[in-house]
């Protein structure tokens, strides 16, 4: 790999423990790297640990009852062992995050303008007038009409789509090197989602920002990310370049997901092929493969040993019995 690494996550694991209950390992053995300007997607369903991963990188998990292990090296510094002060220096200015729910991520009693300026002025020494100018410019760049007027408005006066754009504007205000977007368009309608994804795509491309896109929507990933990590039950089960992942999925879970999603571009009367069971039907990774109870490809070994994420063909895979051949061909027939 020649590209310059921006962030390299190694063996990240997050355990939540509450008094009187068994500790829960929400994320474990998560390792991946992201190069400058690269766009990485993390896909998974609820409970897969994709959001927890992002929160851990941003140092946003509650300190009490949470154990974070592993390392996340961002430009030769470990984000996970950093002091709160160091982290605050980096958060917002170098690494920014956009959340799913734009209403609860904005302060309801402060104007949009103040909220953007605040971020700019925390990391740059500029006058309040200059900050306001830059805020307006940011709103314009994320496609908000009449930005000057919007600066004086409060979050509840804006629609969901505009709010999410404001959040993106806040995140990009200090020109971060890395943007983490956690389901940024899930709460929005498709036409608004299309607008925002389009703007997000242009913005990160223009500024050379690296992007970690966390979502459950394979469609969102397909057009946006260079490399995709599929998570299941707290671990990465397959990592591949975008084309390889979508055309020849090797993990039965990835393959199952791709086959079960209703698509606009497949024959209508063909029944969908769902993955059996539900994401709660798992076994602990220590007893075998967590996907085994739902896996149509499972073999005896899946209940005997824990699979590891290992190089397989052109990707990384955590599976004893990978899918073979070109699944897409089978699908078309």
């Amino acid at each position, binding site marked *: 790999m020649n590209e310059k690494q921006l962030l390299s996550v190694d063996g990240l694991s997050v355990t939540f423990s509450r008094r009187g209950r068994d500790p829960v390992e929400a994320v474990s053995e998560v390792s991946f790297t992201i190069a400058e300007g690269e766009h990485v997607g993390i896909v998974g369903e609820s409970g897969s640990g994709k959001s927890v991963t992002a929160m851990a990188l941003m140092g946003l998990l509650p300190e009490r009852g949470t154990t974070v292990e592993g390392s996340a090296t961002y430009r030769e510094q470990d984000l996970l062992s950093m002091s709160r002060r160091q982290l605050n220096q980096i958060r917002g200015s170098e690494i920014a995050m956009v959340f799913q729910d734009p209403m609860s991520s904005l302060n309801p009693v402060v104007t949009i303008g103040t909220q953007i300026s605040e971020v700019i002025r925390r990391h740059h020494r500029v006058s309040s007038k200059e900050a306001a100018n830059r805020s307006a410019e940011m709103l314009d760049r994320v496609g908000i009409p009449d930005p000057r007027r919007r600066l004086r408005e409060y979050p509840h006066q804006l629609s969901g789509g505009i709010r999410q754009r404001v959040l993106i504007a806040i995140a990009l205000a200090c020109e971060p090197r890395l943007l983490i977007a956690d389901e940024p368009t899930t709460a929005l309608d498709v036409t608004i989602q*299309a607008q925002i994804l389009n703007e997000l795509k242009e913005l990160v491309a223009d500024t050379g920002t690296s992007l970690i896109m966390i979502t459950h929507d394979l469609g969102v990933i397909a057009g946006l990310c260079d490399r995709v990590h599929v998570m299941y039950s707290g671990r990465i089960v397959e990592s591949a370049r975008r084309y390889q992942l979508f055309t020849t999925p090797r993990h039965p879970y990835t393959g199952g997901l791709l086959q*079960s999603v209703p698509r*606009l571009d497949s024959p*209508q009367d063909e029944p969908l092929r769902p993955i059996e069971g539900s994401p709660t039907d798992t076994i602990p990774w220590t007893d075998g493969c967590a996907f085994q109870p739902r896996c149509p490809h499972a073999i005896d070994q899946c209940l005997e040993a824990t699979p590891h994420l290992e190089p397989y063909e052109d990707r990384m895979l955590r599976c004893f019995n990978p899918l073979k051949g070109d699944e897409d061909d089978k699908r078309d027939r």
Partner: protein
Amino acid sequence: MTSETDEVVLEVSGLKVHFPIKAGSLIRRQVGAVKAVDGVDLTVKSGTTLGIVGESGCGKSTLGKALLKLIKPTEGTISFDGSDISQIYGERLRRLRRRMQMIFQDPLSSLNPRQSVETLLTEPMKAHRLDFDPKTKVAELLDLVGLPHSAANRYPHEFSGGQRQRLGIARAVALEPELVIADEPVSALDVSIQAQVINLLRELQERLGLTYIVIAHDLAVVRHVSDEIAVMYLGVIVEQAPAEQLYEHPMHPYTKALLSAVPLPDPKAEDERKPMLLSGELPSPADPPTGCRFHTRCPFRQPTRCADERPALVEHSSGQKVACHWADEIASGTITPREEQDAVTTAR
């Protein structure tokens, strides 16, 4: 999607649902109305599925509830199996409910948390004084939706999302209804579960000869279950057509935009996909635009007619019903969308 007959189960005409906006603290006067549904005509044939798609705020859920008389319609007629039910209330309506059922979006909140599965499945049958043996009937229903018999004495919170939705479906079909309205039946579920529920709905239709109205925002989901699809925008239907035709040759600009906005889980297709981006935001249903409701955001907007004349839902040569003054011109390519550059500047 089978056993199509020409028998019409539901016929709706001129249906309006307006929610009054009241002002004044002591004497409350009506100062306006949210026109959630504003003049909808629909026909649903027995044994088929009508899909209703639209984005949030288009009035699709309100329409669904009004069809079942869970919300009082303001105007219009709803003819179910030949008789107008729009003015029926009280005990007659209650008895009619056996024949038309609903599947809800959130299976957890639509199941009473204090009822065991057996109770919640048998209660409606008791209410309608049906003759049945609880044990065998419950077992039969659980079989039908693919849940183990042991589920009978458990409670809703002990199930996963997909299983709960199966319970909701079992409860809806318990009364052997003719019409089932499903409001966003899969949108609260995990991706890998959605397909299970979609397949179940299709299977039940075949087995029980049900007529469905499926309301959803997800076009791919609707397409997979529907014979006919109606697209709603701001309280009105803008296009209605057989499913395949609508997806292959959308005629209304809003349908075109909606279809092109859906991201596909296929990198090749994604690289080529050029979404038709809409400018601006959804106008308020309390104060909808004059003329064509979509004209404020339409990339095909023309200087005449669009802003001042309300287009009717007209059947075109292809058999598609479209509410657009310029549908034929757009289809033949004589009217093209404004340049993308243009659209971007208006957006800003």
